């Protein structure tokens, strides 16, 4: 990749980096290089300030007070729900449920929507490249009901086989849950085609968008799926907030996953009637400050030029890939033709944890391990990988630092 092209695509990179206070620090005596955004993205100042402002000025419980602070907190909290609706192209805020995380959203759908539909012998279909959050909830309900969990296979590049997917959609298949993009190797799945194939057989589809939302414009109407789950913290918002989007008709027929305050219309000693959507799924006091911080993150993302950002990330990824290919001993796992800017590396003789420690000593933060995707690691026959995940605040200089770090790993191990 020529320097010219990269420079041309720098979208006020300095200004962008200025917005992220955490990036400007030294770690182990070196300027921090943060290449672990797929684990959690860093937060712009606006998000931190929104949370502080909320606690300093508006803190009160939502949906239950008549006093001014409670009214204000409720207004801000519900305004974020509208921001979420607009951001993902949902029809109504009734379809946008605030949860704790992507994981909780998947568990909610597994327990409240899928489990009552399962009988012994039925099947739930997922893929080989899921992370544990999109495996274990299905294992739990399959164990409980005697249903079977089926996996779609993939090729050596880490791409899902559409043929295998269609072959495994049978009249026993009651539900499909697939990641929009893989956290471990970056593969972006052909969601449109998969949703169509499943819907042709009348099977509802959930999409786990935890990784995708940070890198692409997601439009649930366009995707055509029935449920979409994502987390605020991967899209530059706070931890502890996630969203379950679901078709209103489906959410309507589901019984609540958790019971408590906030989700009721009327409680007598004998019986409870539930609150309207989406509140019937939001038992207990929610993460109000987190949701308000999430609103600031959505504003921040909306202020960026998505096309330029995406082009910049792709260019930086291409540069990193080219540089990595020149480092002896390391190879990239997962080279799908359509993927997120994630590079998962393995070395024939050096374990990912040793790589991670040596890079950390140079101030470089990246993830070493199985990325909570152990079946995927088994497929590639590796115990762990070193993952560089790129966000728009990363620079070419940072990639150079990481590459130099990998050379240092080789030197240290006499490779």
């Amino acid at each position, binding site marked *: 990749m020529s320097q010219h092209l990269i420079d041309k695509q720098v979208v006020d990179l300095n200004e962008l980096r200025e917005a992220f206070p955490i990036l400007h620090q030294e770690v182990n005596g070196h300027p921090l290089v943060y290449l672990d955004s797929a684990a959690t993205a860093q937060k712009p100042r606006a998000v931190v300030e929104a949370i502080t402002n909320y606690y300093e000025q508006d803190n009160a419980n939502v949906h239950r007070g008549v006093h001014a602070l409670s009214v204000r907190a409720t207004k801000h909290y519900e305004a974020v729900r509208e921001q979420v609706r607009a951001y993902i192209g949902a029809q109504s805020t009734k379809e946008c449920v605030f949860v704790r995380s992507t994981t909780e959203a998947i568990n909610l759908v597994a327990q409240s929507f899928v489990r009552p539909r399962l009988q012994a012998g039925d099947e739930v279909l997922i893929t080989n490249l899921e992370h544990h959050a999109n495996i274990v909830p299905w294992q739990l309900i399959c164990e409980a009901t005697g249903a079977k969990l089926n996996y779609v296979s993939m090729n050596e590049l880490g791409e899902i086989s559409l043929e295998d997917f269609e072959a495994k959609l049978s009249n026993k298949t009651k539900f499909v849950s697939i990641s929009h993009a893989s956290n471990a190797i970056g593969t972006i799945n052909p969601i449109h085609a998969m949703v169509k194939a499943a819907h042709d057989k009348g099977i509802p589809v959930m999409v786990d968008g935890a990784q995708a939302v940070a890198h692409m414009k997601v439009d649930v109407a366009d995707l055509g799926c029935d449920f979409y789950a994502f987390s605020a913290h991967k899209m530059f918002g706070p931890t502890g907030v996630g969203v379950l989007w679901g078709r209103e008709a489906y959410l309507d027929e589901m019984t609540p996953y958790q019971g408590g305050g906030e989700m009721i219309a009327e409680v007598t000693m004998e019986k409870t009637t539930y609150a309207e959507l989406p509140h019937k799924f939001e038992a207990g006091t929610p993460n109000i400050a987190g949701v308000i911080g999430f609103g600031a993150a959505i504003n921040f993302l909306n202020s960026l030029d998505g096309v330029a950002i995406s082009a910049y990330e792709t260019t930086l990824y291409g540069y990193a890939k080219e540089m990595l290919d020149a480092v002896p001993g390391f190879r990239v796992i997962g080279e799908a033709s359509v993927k997120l800017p994630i590079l998962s590396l393995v070395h024939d003789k*050096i374990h990912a944890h*040793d790589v991670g420690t040596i890079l950390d*000593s140079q101030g470089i933060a990246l993830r070493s*391990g199985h990325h909570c995707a*152990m079946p995927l690691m088994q497929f590639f026959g590796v115990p762990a990988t070193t993952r560089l995940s790129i966000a728009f605040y990363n620079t070419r200089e940072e990639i150079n630092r990481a590459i130099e770090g990998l050379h240092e790993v080789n030197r*240290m*191990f006499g490779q």
Partner: protein
Amino acid sequence: MMDLQALYQEVILDHNNAPRNHHAMDCATCEARGVNPLCGDKLSVYLLLKKDVIEDVSFLGEGCAISQASASLMTEALKGKTTTEAQALFKAFQTLLTEEGAKPDASLGKLAIFEGVRTFPARVKCATLASHAFEAALNKDTTPVTTE
């Protein structure tokens, strides 16, 4: 302050490259498994006890340099020791790695080089996995040891 040189010393790299006593043992009198779920380090450890003396010792496994080297060095340290001496060795090793300011006990011999791991908290579990697994084998504990 992190000191990489203290972590990846020559001896550790050597034992990682060419682990000693690295094989299964058919005639083992005790064995155990150790896993580090966070990293995926896996060890199987084997002991051949004659009365209360460790006559032979070996391991198999995969993982980072620290986990492999500590298992390899541990096998060398354990050979010929009585079970009481071995228990004392595990305790001395674990103390060295987890207690602030602990100085290596003379009984540790070459294992003292793992002192440097203490400044890398994320790696302490890699270094102690083998000692926990051997301890479980000696105690005839059949559930796999995990560091979590």
